């Protein structure tokens, strides 16, 4: 629920109890006032009747009014009773129905005689007025509420406009953009402050990011030269005579480690470059040709491992990608399949318009499947691996909106890696390539 709706909701929620409570209060107040005025009138009527009985003897127009009002009755004797108000209904001759009536009854001793005096007032009309007033008030309140909501939403919309603008900008924020993002300023002090703070933050982040990127770049490159020196000198050392077997073994192991370091450095550099979006340019890459070539290149290795290295490659499949990254993507997946395939089994690659797949038989993953594409995750049985091959695959796939999945079929012990090409991955994300 957005800010605007939330505000309106709270407003309505607050208005409902106010409306109910206010309505009740108003109704009570009106009724009280009417009752008070009617009672005052009745008391005055009574006083008038008593005055007339005192002076004239008979009240003017006794029973002449509707509802037998006023009603004066001489009593043979008795004690005076204080005036008593009562609500009742009486039959209205003219309206031919029962109408609500306020009645004042008293027994008074005037001179030598005792009278029972009743004065009445029909209150139906007053109640109607009270009702009308209440309805009027409620309707006005509702109209006012609606007006308030509309006004409030309009004002809020205007007031929060700069805020929404900032949110939109933040949503499109990219750390690896060429220049740091500039956030809009506003005439509202708070939002202006927010914009300024975001600007400072964005500039700091961008500066840090750039320097880190350059550092990684330089560090990795600087490392290559000493590696070249070590490689060369190890070669020279190995060429000296005489060397003992133990020395040769040591030197070879060192050489292996240096090579691994070089590989690691190269892969890390590549990952950093992909992270930094340094492979922006893309051209249509013919994946079919590429897959065929790599498949052929790896044939000797497959043969060496005693694998039957098969391929099913649909012709003419093109994908806009950086050619180098396309090669790294396919090559790493193929190498992964070949390295982990059990000797003497089938390993297969499949390329269809919807995606690329490698299938090989092998042992279950020695680590949780969720870590498969993480960096530096490798099979403990293969310490010489850099653990970056599949991380690169996942990074490249992610870069081009492809979806990489791994599936292990327990009974057949088959590992299947699937890369779904972006155009179709939306529709086929859950289905396997056939």
């Amino acid at each position: 629920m957005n800010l605007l709706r939330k505000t309106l909701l709270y407003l309505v929620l607050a208005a409902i109890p106010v409306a109910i409570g206010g309505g009740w209060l108003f109704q009570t107040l009106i009724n009280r006032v009417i009752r008070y005025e009617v009672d005052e009138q009745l008391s005055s009527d009574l006083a008038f009747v008593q005055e007339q009985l005192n002076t004239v003897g008979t009240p003017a127009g006794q029973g002449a009014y509707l509802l037998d009002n006023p009603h004066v009755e001489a009593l043979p004797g008795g004690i005076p009773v204080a005036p008593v108000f009562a609500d009742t209904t009486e039959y209205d001759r003219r309206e031919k129905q029962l109408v609500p009536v306020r009645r004042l009854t008293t027994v008074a001793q005037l001179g030598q005689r005792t009278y029972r005096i009743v004065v009445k007032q029909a209150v139906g009309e007053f109640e109607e007025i009270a009702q009308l007033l209440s309805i009027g008030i409620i309707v006005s309140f509702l109209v006012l509420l609606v007006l308030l909501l509309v006004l409030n939403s309009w004002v809020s919309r205007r007031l929060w406009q700069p805020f929404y603008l900032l949110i939109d900008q933040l949503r499109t924020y990219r750390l690896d953009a060429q220049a740091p993002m500039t956030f809009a300023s506003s005439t509202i002090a708070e939002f202006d402050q927010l914009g300024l703070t975001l600007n400072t933050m964005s500039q700091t982040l961008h500066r840090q990011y750039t320097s880190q990127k350059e550092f990684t770049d330089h560090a990795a490159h600087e490392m290559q030269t000493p590696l070249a020196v070590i490689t060369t000198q190890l070669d020279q050392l190995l060429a000296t005579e005489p060397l003992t077997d133990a020395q040769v073994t040591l030197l070879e192991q060192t050489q292996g480690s240096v090579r691994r370091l070089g590989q690691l450095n190269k892969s890390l550099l590549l990952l950093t470059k992909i992270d930094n979006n340094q492979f922006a340019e893309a051209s249509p890459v013919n994946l079919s040709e590429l897959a065929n070539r790599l498949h052929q290149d790896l044939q000797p290795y497959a043969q060496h491992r005693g694998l039957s290295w098969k391929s099913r490659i649909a012709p003419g499949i093109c994908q806009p990608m950086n050619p180098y990254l396309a090669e790294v993507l396919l090559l790493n997946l193929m190498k992964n399949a070949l390295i982990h395939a059990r000797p003497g089994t089938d390993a297969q690659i499949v390329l269809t318009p919807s995606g690329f797949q490698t299938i090989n038989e092998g042992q279950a993953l020695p680590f949780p499947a969720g870590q498969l594409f993480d960096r530096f995750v490798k099979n403990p049985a293969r310490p010489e691996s850099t653990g970056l091959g599949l991380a690169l695959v996942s990074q490249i796939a992610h870069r081009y909106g492809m979806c990489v999945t791994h599936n292990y079929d327990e009974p057949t012990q088959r590992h299947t890696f699937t890369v779904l090409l972006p155009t179709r991955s939306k529709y086929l994300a859950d289905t396997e390539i056939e």
Partner: protein
Amino acid sequence: MKILLVEDEPTLLIAMRQFLDEEGYIVTTAASFATASRALNDYDYDCIVVDIGLPDGNGLNLIRQVKADENPAGASIGAPGVSTPGLIIISAKDSLDDKLLGLELGSDDYLTKPFHLPELNARIKSVLRRRFFGGNRLIRHGDITVDPLAHRVTVREQPIDLTEKEYQLLLFFLANTNRLLTKAAIAEYVWGDHMDMADSHDFLYTHIKNLRRKLVEGGCPDYIKTRYGAGYLFTTP
């Protein structure tokens, strides 16, 4: 053959120089852009090996300089008697952009650090062969003759059938005869990026065994010698 080596890392420069001296080249070294630029002005070279990342300038500019000298305004391109030097870039950056730019500028090859010296040697030989003999010269070694242009290998005039990798392997051996080639160097040269596989040394062994068998079956002596476990030696007959 005169070679100019431009590299700012002294240890590497000395090692390269020593290696190429032994190959019989006349080697000049330059450890900075300025020295290299001066050397290029003063002398002609048959092959120039340039590290791009020099502290006082970009090695690519040296290539531009060489190319500018080659085609001075008004001179006819490819005039007879003017031989253009071969150009090999070495770089710490495995960057496709640099590679493409280098090749565009007219360099012949691009080598990424770290590399093995026999590989540099093989590349220099190949560049020189292309530059000065149009790639036409046959490589002879005892009974073996390789025609690099036709991609054909004959032993005692009889063609033998080698796989692509075996052919590469043979070329590498022939470029570095009588030198110990470590397994790592051979693997790097023949398989390059594909070589981070686990059992590369067994793999290599299989290929060398096959090459050796084919050569011996063709009737030539067994030139390939194993030295301890350190590597292989392709001996002169």
